[in-house]
């Protein structure tokens, strides 16, 4: 036997249903990323947004929502661009260039991670040898650092009329002392 619901009871059920957390649909990589990212508490009900440059996930928690949101940093964008080059094949420029060197890419990525915030971000260059280089050309600074893929960096730097060039060892753990002093704008 069924009993008809009163208006008040129906309204309560409706409110209870709408108060349930919005089911979240997120991709596994996004969840993995979330663990490493800071979490901000917010009462916003914004839906999951995954765009090219920003990743946001929403998790229900007693009618409040925790949102982890951190835009991709410029360093990360730079690393992403460099890593994409590993997909290129021999003759990527139509003029007989060598395929990008994985070792050189690895070294340059390590180097970018070690860059201080007070050093302006460089422009990456893919050379026909397959090596990757980093390049600055701003104001009085010109710098070109070629990652040779064997634990060495060849460089030429011109800063305010001073010229520096050489080859320096790079172990991917520590920034060679020569660069921050010269490259800092």
């Amino acid at each position: 036997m069924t009993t008809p619901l009163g208006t008040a009871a129906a309204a309560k059920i409706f409110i209870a249903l709408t108060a349930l957390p919005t089911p979240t649909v997120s991709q596994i990589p996004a969840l993995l990323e979330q663990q490493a990212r800071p979490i901000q508490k917010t009462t916003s009900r914004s839906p999951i947004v995954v765009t090219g440059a920003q990743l946001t996930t929403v998790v229900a928690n007693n009618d409040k929502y925790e949102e982890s949101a951190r835009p991709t940093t410029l360093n990360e964008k730079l690393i992403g661009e460099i890593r994409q080059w590993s997909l290129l094949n021999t003759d990527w420029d139509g003029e007989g260039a060598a395929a990008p060197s994985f070792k050189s890419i690895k070294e340059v990525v390590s180097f970018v991670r070690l860059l201080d915030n007070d050093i302006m971000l460089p422009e990456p260059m893919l050379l026909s040898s397959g090596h990757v280089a980093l390049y600055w050309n701003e104001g009085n600074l010109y710098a070109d650092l070629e990652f040779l893929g064997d634990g060495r960096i060849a460089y030429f730097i011109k800063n305010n009329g001073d010229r520096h060039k050489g080859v320096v060892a790079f172990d991917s753990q520590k920034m060679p002392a020569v660069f921050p002093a010269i490259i800092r704008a």
Partner: protein
Amino acid sequence: MPSTRKKCRLCSRLSSGLKEFLHRFFRVGVDCQGINRRTHGEEQRVAKINAAAPDCACEKYRMSRHSPCAVENSEILARFVFSPIHIHHKTGNVKPSIFSHVFSVGCSIQRDSVATNKELISFANDFLGGDDKRSWRGVLLAECHELRSIKVENSLNRAVCVYDTAEQENPAHGEIGQTHHIINEADVVELRHALFTAFGNGAVIPPFQYRNGKVWDNLAQHFQARK
């Protein structure tokens, strides 16, 4: 027939070998056209040219029978930019990486002073037709004598040679290659900077401005539409 062809090939090899021997030991003539042919398409072309004809010896001779003449100091040379990977994101200028072929296979240039519009249109159409990802971003110009006067720090020797490596379908084709005096990796990076400076610090001339747009206007429409 096959035996005759074999004989001719053998004769040709003997002949170029003899010329190379005479040059190497007696400095008699330089078989520049032979050197150009033999090293064509090789990964270490520049090093092989330097070994066979050091100190830019082949600049004095035509390196190809399709070339009108050796490259003169007064000529203007054009480096066509087809690969977006060499464009600086922020400034839109070309990066020094565009010259990195100088150290291996030779950096292709067009001899602006001798090329006709028709030849350049044909060259651009041919190159763009090779891959959908290529687009013509513009041209960098430099004076030949400026390139030939480049030296790296602490060296009295020239750093690059400029040759006329014409092709049948591209008679204005030339090449820049490093000399054997560029030895260490730091010199390579410095030379990249010197070339970048000589070619106007990467300030690219847009296709529609180059030669008053006469090459651009005659480019196939689907190539113009590429970005």
